[in-house]
Structure formats: C-alpha cells, structure tokens
C-alpha cells in the first residue's frame, strides 16, 4: 500500500512538471564544513563568500538542470572530530551534498564517515565534493565512490612543478618544509620522488615538518634554512603557516626562491608585499589573471565583498553538478554520482574531465610568479600592487598521474 502511494505521488509529480526535467526548480541543499575561526579561519571565511556568490550565479537559469543551489557553512575549527559532528548536523538538516577542502586530515575522516553513512542509510546517501584537500591517498588507496576531488592533487601539482624546475638551472640546493600532517608529508615525498626523476643533480639539503597552525615564530626555521645553504624552498604550507614563513624569510634576509602551492590564498599576498618579486612561485589550477569571464567574476566579487576570489574549484563544482543533474534528470545523489563519473565540462580554462577511475578532476595547471602588477597582468590581490603572473601552462595530460584506486561501486 505504502509503495503504491509513493509510486502514485511520483507519477503525479512527473505529470505535473510535464517535462523530462524532473529536477527543475528543486533546491539543492549543500553544506560546507570548514574552519571559519582560528589561525586558518580567514581562508575558510573567504572561500565561504565564494560559495554564496557562485551559488547565486549558477542557480536557476545558470545551470542546465535548472536547480537552485543553496550553500550553508559550518565551522569545524580544522578539527576532524568537530567535522564529524558538523557532518551529522548537515545530514540532519537534510543536506545531501557535503563540501570540504581545507585540511586533508579532515578529508580522510569525512570520507570514512560518509562511506559508513551511505552503507547504513540506503536511500539517504550523501556525496562528498572535495574542493581543496590534495592528499593523493584520497584518490588512490583511500578512494571512495562518494568522493569527488576538484582540486589537483599533490602528485599532479608536483609533476607540473618539477617539469618547470627542469628548465631552472640556477636551482641547486632545495629545502623542503611542510606542515606535519598528511598533506605536508605527501608534498615532501613527491618533491623528492619527482626531483630525483627529472633533476637528479639537485641536492635536497634539508627537510622539516612543523605542527599545523601552531608555529608563531618561523625565524628559527629560516635560520636553519639559511645555514643549510639552500637556494630554493619547496613548501605545501598554506594560510598563516605560509604567511608567517615568508614574513620570517623577509625579516631574516633569506633571498632564495619559494615554490609554493598556496601563495595566492588570503593573507599571504599581504605578507609577501613588495618583497619576493620574481622569486615566489605558485603551482595551481588557476591564477589571478585568467582572463575572460573569470576576470569579470573576480572584479564583481571584489566589488561586493572587498575580498579576492581564488578557489576556482567552487565554480567547477557548480558547473559539473549542474551538468550531471541535467544528465541524470534528478538531484538524487546516487544518480548524480553515476552521472558525474567521467563527465566533461567546458570550464574557465578549457575542458576538464572527472576521471571515472578515481574521481579526480583532470585539468590544466599553471606556474605563476609573484611580480609587480602591470598592463598585461593587472589583478592585484589584497591591493598589494603585485600579482601572480603566469609563466607556464601545462595541459591536462602533463600533470595527469596514474591511480591505484580500486573503487567499489554500488551494484
């Protein structure tokens, strides 16, 4: 009886809409779990604004499925334990789409929890859209059918970074510094691996891990780096850990190059200031001067929030989700997940593909360098008068790395 009633209602709904776009006009509830307070709070807060901004832009006629996106933010204080509480709260609120990115430690905990939830609650599955946690394990040994990554992982970024370093003959002695958790450890591992393969002449003169978001004073580390004779530092640091590191480097008179993942993120441009011109590099899937539609969005974002937009995977999430929902003709996460696998969309820098094997987005990567903003590259983050100017672009296939993922798909 109950089943018959459900079928009847479903039929009635279908008849009422009268088209094949069953999902049109539906509201897609999404929750983003990220730090909004503490040392790394500024990053999460800025990215939260990006979600509000683009949820509006991509809602309704902005996406092929015609759905309305609604994003709420929950503070997880960068703690895996708090994140699991936040996940529970999000599911209780009826969210079926979870977004997270800051901190692979959090991401690994969430993947685990979501796997269990989906197994135990058929019909109430949630999807996990990862916009920034770049630990390669997430798409290799720990890969999950419910997890989709829109950033490029550490191995991909290091592939691009080391390809760029092949032509930088003045790099001789490299120091690797990172945050002591999965991400920092992976950056160190892949840096050593790819450099040994592509630039065996480079010497690794030192390696250090420090606690995540705990160190106030990086002067001792800078003194150590100077004493090691390094001319280049590779670091996966982000947020205050990168700002304070570069601040200490400027104060301590370290003149070497920095190869970073996150130089453009909130707070870091200000701490770089006029210093570091021509010697701080960033590897990422975008930069501040992408041109076209992106420039207009960034100008509008700055006007509206007096802040810089840099997490381009926000856009990717709405683009691919809209396309997948149109294809699945549904907002049901199970159907959308199936549609997301292998989906190709035209994004702000060309075509990107969500690889079916491991749910890792395949996308172009850029090396950019900190320098004075000029006519060609005018966008100045945090009004520093400086910018990240692209020096090299790598198409999808260069940075694409193999995966060992053996995914269990729901039958």
């Amino acid at each position, binding site marked *: 009886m109950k089943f018959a009633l459900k079928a009847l209602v479903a039929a009635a709904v279908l008849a009422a809409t009268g088209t094949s776009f069953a999902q049109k006009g539906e509201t897609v509830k999404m929750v983003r779990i990220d730090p909004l307070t*503490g*040392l790394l709070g500024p990053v999460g807060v800025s990215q939260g604004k990006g979600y509000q901004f683009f949820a509006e832009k991509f809602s309704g006629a902005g996406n092929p499925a015609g759905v309305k996106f609604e994003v709420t933010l929950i503070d997880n204080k960068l703690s895996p334990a708090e994140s699991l509480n936040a996940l529970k709260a999000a599911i209780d609120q009826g969210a079926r789409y979870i977004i997270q990115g800051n901190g692979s430690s959090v991401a690994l905990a969430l993947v685990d929890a979501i796997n269990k939830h989906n197994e135990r609650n058929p019909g109430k599955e949630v999807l996990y859209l990862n916009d920034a946690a770049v630990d390669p394990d997430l798409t290799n040994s720990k890969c999950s059918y419910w997890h989709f990554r829109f950033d490029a992982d550490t191995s991909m970024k290091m592939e691009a970074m080391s390809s760029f370093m092949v032509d930088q003959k003045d790099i001789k002695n490299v120091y690797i510094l990172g945050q002591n958790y999965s991400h920092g450890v992976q950056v160190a591992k892949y840096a050593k691996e790819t450099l040994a393969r592509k630039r065996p002449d480079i010497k690794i003169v030192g390696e250090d891990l420090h606690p995540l978001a705990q160190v106030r004073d990086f002067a*001792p580390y800078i*003194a150590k780096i*100077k*004493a090691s004779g390094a001319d280049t530092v590779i670091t996966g640091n982000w947020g*205050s850990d990168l700002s304070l590191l570069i601040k200490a480097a400027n*104060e301590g*008179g370290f003149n070497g190059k920095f190869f970073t993942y996150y130089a453009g993120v909130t707070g870091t441009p200000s701490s770089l200031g006029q210093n570091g011109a021509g010697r701080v590099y960033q590897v990422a899937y975008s930069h501040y001067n992408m041109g076209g539609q992106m420039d207009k969005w960034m100008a509008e974002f700055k006007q509206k929030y007096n802040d810089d937009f840099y997490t381009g995977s926000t856009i990717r999430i709405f683009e691919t989700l809209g396309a997948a929902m149109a294809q699945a003709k549904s907002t049901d996460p199970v159907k959308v997940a199936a549609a997301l696998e292998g989906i190709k969309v035209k994004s702000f820098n060309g075509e990107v593909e969500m690889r079916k094997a491991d749910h890792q987005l395949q996308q172009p990567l850029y090396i950019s360098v900190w320098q004075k903003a000029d006519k060609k590259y005018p966008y100045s983050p945090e009004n520093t008068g400086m910018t990240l100017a692209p020096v090299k672009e790598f198409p999808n296939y260069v940075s694409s790395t193999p995966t060992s993922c053996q995914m269990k798909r729901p039958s």
Partner: protein
Amino acid sequence: MEFLIISLLNGLSYGLLLFMLSSGLTLIFSMMGVLNFAHASFYMLGAYIGYSTSRLIGFWPAVFIAPLLVGVLGALFERTFLRKVHKYGHVPELLITFGLSYVVVEVVQLVWGRLAVEFRPPELLQGPAFTLVNHAVNGLSVLWGAAPASLCNAADAAVRVVCSPFPATRGFMMLIALVMLLSVWLLLTRSRIGLVIQAALTHPEAVESLGHNVPRVFMLVFGAGTALAGLAGVIGGSTFLTEPSMAATVGSVIFVVVVVGGLGSLSGAFLASLLIGVVQTFAVAFDYSIGSLAAQVGIPLGSAVQGNSLVKMTLSQVAPILPYLLLVLILIFRPKGLLGTREG
C-alpha cells in the same frame, strides 16, 4: 657562526617575551597566592587594545596607554569579583579566573571579529636592527641597520657571503623586557610600596594594623600584574600575530615557565623563560632522532624498528612540545622549581 648567534638571539627574544608574560603571573601569585588562569587573556586584551589605540593615536602612545587600560580592567576585576570569592579559598578563586578566560575570548571575538587583525609595528621598527655579515674571507662583522646589497653579494662568485638581518621588533622586545625586569625588581626590593606589598603577603594583620589598606594593595598588585601582561600583548601582538586564539597558545606555555622557574620566584621565571626560549629555538635546528642517535653510538636497529615513526621522529619535529616535557621532568625531580622556595 652567524647561525649560532642569530639562533641565540631568536631564542633569547622569544624567551624574553615569555618572561614579560610570566612576570605578571608570578607577581600576582607570589603576592596574593592566586593562580590567575586568565593571565593570557589579559595578554590578548593588551594586543587588541594596543591595536585599536595605535590606529587612533599611533603606536608609541599605545605602548603606554594599552597596558594602563588593561591594568585598570584587571584591578576592576579584582575589586568586583575576585575579592568577593577570596574568603572561600583557592578553588573558587581559580575557577573564577578560569571562567574569565572564556568570557574574554568571546568578548574579543564580538568586538574585533574572529579573524586576525593587521597590527603593524611602527615605521621605526620595521626592518632590521642590525645585520650580521659573514664573509668567507673577511670574517664576521656587524652593521647597524640594513646592510647594502653590494656588501651581501660578493663580486667574486667563489666567495660566500651571508647576510643575516635581525628584526628591530625583536630587539625592541628584548629591550622592553629587560627594562621591565629591572623596574619590577627595583620597585619590589628598593621602594616603600615594595616593602608594604611583601609584608602584606606574609603578615597581613600586622600590616593592616599599621594603617595600610591591604585589600587595596592586593588590587594594585593584581592591576600591575595584568598591566605587565597587557604590555607583553602590545609587543607580542605587533611582532607576531594578533588573533583570538593567541591567548590559548601562550597560556599553557607561561604556566610551564612559572612552574619550572619555581612558583612565585621572579628570578626563577626569568631563568625558565630564557631556558625555554633558547631550548625551543635550538631544538628546531637538530635533526637527531632516536634512530640516528642509536646508529651513532653503534647500536644496530632492525629495519622494522628503523621504520617506526616514533624512532624516526626528529628533535626538530617535537620542538614545540619540549616545554611540556620539561614541565613533567621538573615536577618529578624538583617540584619546587629551579629557584622556587615553596614546597611543590
């Protein structure tokens, strides 16, 4: 060599900041017997009030006004809350300061927001105080201010020149801490007020019967202690970072300083601060692990043991938790602290 000097100076300057913080805590404890859990909160208030006043009237007046305001707030707290619970003993006193620390964090977030604020040191303190130039041929020399680029880049590529500037903010921090130590010490041992304060601690009735207002003396001491924390806040906040979790991160370390130095001993706190600052800075420089030490003294380790993450962990990785290890060791082997007189 220049690495040694710069590291030593980095360690000393960090240690002196810790001393600025813990001196107020020590003062309050030794005079009143109150372990003020909210001490680091007054440090944070100093940083934030310093930030706001320096935007209004400039940094230099803020260095004086912010600690004064924090001291007044501290005295008010003592007068209105702490004094009321004093008669119920130590535990209620401790709990009320514990509660205050939570209230302060929320108030700071309400007033100044949850994110870091940009508290810049003044123009005069930006840039290096002096530069150590280590020339492979000419040896080590010291230059005031920034060294010219021509000096740091040898014309001959074979000659290695390393310039190590020392930030002026850190020099200023050291100077202020030393001036503070001297004045607090002089005030306590050489002045009439100091005598009254010291007497009020051990013989409050006798002091009271001589016509001194002992509760007011306590209020002043508490105010002075928190003012010292406020001063440390202005200096520390502008040198490092001003944000709502700054109290939580220094809070635990200053208790380590006070316990290691010996509860209530000002000279002990001074010694312990320097010790912790220097140990933490130098620990970063050492990449020794249990595994590498065993290899050096010739103890063969199996490959399974060598792969163990605990055996591989280097001293530099555990540098931030060394103070707490020191705390545990001190409590076991010398409960009264390095220079303490009370039994632990």
